């Protein structure tokens, strides 16, 4: 079995399309998207005269209707942001009314995810399993959209069958972050969630953990030290992973443990017998970082290759 895992694509259309292409490109028969699928924000595209303009990546971009506008929207979506054609009145409302902004954001996310799933339905090979889970940055309303899609397995908070006797334990929740994101829990709660699922795993030596947050102090979880105004302190990092995840891995010793969450802390390490991997994320650069894993029903974990596609 060839399993391809990537994570933290944060709304990037380009990353989603590459994720779908991984099936044929890497000849993978199981694709796993490990959470943080929703983008970071909206980009207002302002109508002006007969065209449109926006400020994006420090550059003022102009476009005429038609191909130029399509190209502009493509660039913004590739970067993981949601372009919204909006009048000055609408933009003013976003700035002053959080609910108006949230409504516009939810609409953009919903449209984007539906578009992704439509594309998946068009491209998916029937025998390929596609597992999607969430991350702490994903609003809860996306669960229902993914659950309604029969082409994917929405594995969040479940143990999923991978085939050939292998299972995958999925959890998108993280320990508490300074940003108060959508799926955060105390270490005790995380430990309870992991235990509840792990106890239903028939064979840990054939189980892959897909837990968004990496284990604490594993080298896969170095994040910034923040000052009182939430600004990163220059050059200072601390482990930001979860103690419960670390203890869970050490206690249950699954075959493999896959993580994300901390984009620039990509790496491989071992906790006890378990190989732990964070492939990292460079979605803003247009690069899909992932890991290709070969599992064999006799030999277990045969190989793993981090990819930068």
């Amino acid at each position: 079995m060839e399993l391809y895992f990537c994570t933290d694509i944060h709304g990037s259309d380009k990353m989603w399309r590459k994720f779908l292409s991984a099936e044929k490109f890497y000849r993978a028969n199981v694709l796993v998207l490990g959470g943080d699928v929703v983008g970071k924000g909206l980009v207002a595209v302002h109508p002006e005269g007969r065209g449109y303009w926006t400020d994006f990546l420090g550059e003022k971009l102009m476009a005429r209707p038609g191909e130029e506008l399509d190209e502009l929207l493509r660039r913004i979506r590739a970067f993981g942001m949601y372009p919204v054609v909006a009048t000055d009145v609408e933009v003013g409302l976003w700035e002053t009314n959080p609910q108006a902004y949230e409504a516009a954001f939810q609409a953009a996310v919903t449209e984007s995810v539906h578009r992704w799933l439509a594309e998946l339905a068009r491209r998916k090979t029937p025998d390929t399993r596609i597992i999607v889970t969430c991350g702490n940055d994903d609003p809860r309303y996306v669960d229902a959209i993914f659950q309604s899609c029969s082409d994917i397995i929405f594995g969040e908070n479940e143990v999923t069958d991978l085939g050939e006797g292998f299972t995958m334990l999925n959890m998108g929740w993280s320990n508490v972050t300074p940003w108060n994101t959508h799926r955060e829990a105390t270490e005790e709660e995380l430990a309870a969630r992991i235990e509840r699922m792990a106890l239903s795993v028939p064979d840990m030596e054939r189980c892959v953990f897909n837990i968004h947050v990496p284990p604490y102090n594993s080298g896969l979880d170095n994040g910034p030290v923040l000052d009182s105004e939430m600004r990163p302190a220059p050059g200072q990092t601390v482990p930001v992973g979860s103690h419960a995840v670390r203890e869970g891995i050490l206690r249950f010793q699954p075959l493999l443990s896959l993580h994300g969450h901390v984009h620039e802390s990509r790496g491989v390490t071992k906790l006890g017998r378990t190989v732990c991997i964070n492939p990292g994320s460079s979605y803003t650069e247009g690069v899909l970082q992932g890991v290709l894993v070969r599992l064999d029903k006799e030999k277990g974990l045969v190989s793993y290759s981090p990819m930068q596609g």
Partner: protein
Amino acid sequence: MSDTTVEQAGSTKSVFLRQSSGLVRAFTWWDGLIYNIYAISVVAACSLIFTLTFVFPGANLPLGIVIACLAFVPGCVVYAMLTTIMPRAGGDYVWQSRILGGFWGFWFVFFPLAVGATIFIVSNVLPGAVAFLSPLLYVLGTELGISSLQQFGNWIATSGGQFWFFVVFLAWAAFVVGSGMRFYARVQRYLFFIGMIGLVTWLVGMLIVSHDAFKTNFNSILANQYHWGTTDAYGKILADAKKAGFSAVSLSGTNLGDTILIGPILAYIFAGVFWVGNLSGEIGGVRQFGLSMRIYVGAILSAMVICGLLGFLMINLTGNEFYTSASYMWWAGGGSTYIPVAPWLTLILMSLSQSPAWWLWVLLTFGCWFMIWPTNNVVGGTRYVFAMAFDRILPARFASVSGKNSPIFAIGVYVVVSLVMGWLYYFGNLASIILDQAILLTAGFAVTILAGTLFPYLPATRQRYFDSPLGKYKFVGIPLITLMGVLSLIYFAFLLGEYAFNPTYGTNNLSSAAFLGGGMVLSAVLYFGTRMYRQRHGVNMRRVYEEIPEE
């Protein structure tokens, strides 16, 4: 979580970010700049490389420094752009392999830069023992009447002494780098500022001490401390060099041709400006082009000012004829059998004053730069190995990271290989090929610049380049990265051409060809051997380097 680029985008009125998590890296751009100034090796410049320029007696050293540094500026722009678009640990390898293809990336980085780094650290530690610690201990021993200190000073300059000095240094380097980049950055910062105090003291000393006072002190040290048998060591060196056929000229008698020809010698240090590329994945904020530019262009211009000023003041103080004659007599006139101590750096420093307190102050403060500078060979070398292991072209274990995010296994291997190289250098025949480092460095970096030049034109990478925020920079329709790349490659072609065809640089000989050719052949064998091995285990190495198509 998010990253700093997205945060930056939030500064415009079109972009509306939601509340979500964020991440930065262990190094700041300021740490990156310091790292790069270290990589340019001001210490090596003063203690070693400047002295080698005597082979072109008509060269104007300060002007040569300015020309060489300015010639590297276009390459710095290419590196800054690559760093902004693809900030990755093991930069050169990642950029070359993703743009030109996996084989080329491995071939031009593994031996020239990754293995090369184990040789660089050997030769970089050399000045510390010979030109820094040995004279300091010897003269202090003489002043204080401690003969064991004198003997230790003499011993440290022998092959055995140098080797053990290297072993101790390597242990220190492994400790600092293995403790994680956060700790490394802190140590680097403190030592940089202390070293800067030493540097400024030295510069001020050279400004206020007269040529005659220097001569008097120089003669006194060699007569009274080293018992060289003459009270006019200064005049003897000039006379002996002339007698041996060396044609020294004054600074006003130098010419532009020789000044340009010292470029390939100076490249040994100034090409170090590209070394920080290997760490670009660990520096926060480099996705902002301006910050990347500060790291590269800031470093080369800082080095130009520091080294140019040092070179000028040293020559102004000692006299160009004496400086080049002393270098000639050390390198071509018998070395330590001719004169008991290398007649540069420490001797020049000590000749500014006869006060042991002055010597201690300047040498210990300036020595702080030495304490951290060669360690960046370890940082760079291990980052290349880490990136290659992450691609599975080297064993996966090398990509393992410790809790401090240090590739601890890669560091261990690096230390062991460096020890072997050190042993070969001090007791074997490796010393004769040490000059080949310049070829290794320039070739490795030149291929990265070539990759940058082609980035906007290759079908596999074109879209990615123009989708990046830097895609908009053009000059008469030519992408900036290509324009700067072509300008830079002209200078690199000059450097490589000189190394290959001009015997003065000591690299166009059979042993160099065998060393370089052998290393490259072994690299190719390793690459294809690993590919076959991985293939047999079901890993398609070709796929590792290829970009996944969107459709």
